């Protein structure tokens, strides 16, 4: 079964229940968009799926393998966190070779956006360049499922298009779960939209659903 399956996720912080009733599935070839207000638990859910955060309760299964922690998800899930995660003292070309197989590494090294960065260390890149590199690395990683938290944050509009096209292209062979406050970009590429509301997940079929659950206002497009 080519599917990432998540259910029964419960997580609280200091007595406040953030996630209570989460059900989520993502097949290879599918892009799932997760939306929710600030503090709704989007990043928390991603970290729990990835295995870097302990949940009070969870069930995560990836293609018949039950994921209990980071050790179990090797080559199955990659995760782009909200903040910059690349060490500053390493050359871009070295990082690419670490993250990608040979074919993807050479693909990435010849990319017009990445090529000018190759001989630099990540500490020499601007915040925007670093974000583009991080997004591209995660998308090109060997993992079968990729979790992406705020890929469009701090990225110029023209590069947002490049990121969207790349995710679309790679979604043919892997599953993506993506979240971003720039919901229009998420709506553009997602096959399904899941809204986190009051700790639970609601599948949204039309934009009106986002208004109904109070994620966007009535007059927002």
């Amino acid at each position, binding site marked *: 079964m080519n599917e990432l399956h998540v259910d029964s996720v419960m997580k609280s912080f200091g007595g406040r229940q953030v996630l209570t009733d989460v059900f989520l599935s993502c097949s290879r070839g599918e892009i799932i968009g997760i939306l929710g207000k600030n503090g709704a638990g989007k990043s928390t859910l991603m970290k729990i799926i990835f295995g*870097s955060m302990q949940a009070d309760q969870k069930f995560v299964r990836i293609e018949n393998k039950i994921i209990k922690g*980071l050790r179990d998800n090797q080559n199955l899930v990659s*995760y782009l*966190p909200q903040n910059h*995660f690349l060490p500053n*003292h*390493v050359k871009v070309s070295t990082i690419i070779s*670490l*993250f990608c197989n040979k074919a993807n590494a050479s693909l990435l090294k010849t990319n017009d956006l990445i090529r000018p960065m190759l001989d630099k260390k990540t500490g020499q890149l601007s915040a925007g360049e670093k974000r583009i590199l991080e997004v591209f690395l995660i998308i090109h990683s060997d993992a079968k499922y990729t979790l992406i938290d705020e890929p469009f944050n701090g990225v110029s509009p023209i590069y947002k298009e490049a990121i969207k096209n790349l995710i679309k292209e790679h979604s043919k062979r892997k599953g993506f779960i993506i979240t971003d406050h720039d919901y229009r970009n998420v709506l553009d590429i997602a096959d399904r939209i899941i809204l986190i509301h009051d700790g639970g997940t609601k599948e949204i079929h039309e934009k009106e659903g986002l208004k109904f659950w109070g994620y966007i206002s009535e007059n927002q497009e």
Partner: protein
Amino acid sequence: MRQIISTIIFYKRLVIPALIVSIAFGFLGMIPPGGNFSLKTVGFSYFLNSILFHYLIYEIRHPEEYYFYYNLGFNKLELWGINLFISFVLSLIFIIA
């Protein structure tokens, strides 16, 4: 190979500050009259400093960097284990030398 390069990248960040402070401790042995530079002191303090710098650099200053290693297949416990093992071996070399 990937694991070895990742380990080198991870440990490289710790080795220079830990070594500088440890060598400084080694020179402290020269302060009393007739005192000498002590490699033994360097060795002992290197082990403790590597733990201290791991905590300061990875836990306090750059906790997001853990995600770099998580994506490469390591977990936090393994990274602490790697630090303790390499630092113990290097400390032993200083102490025995």
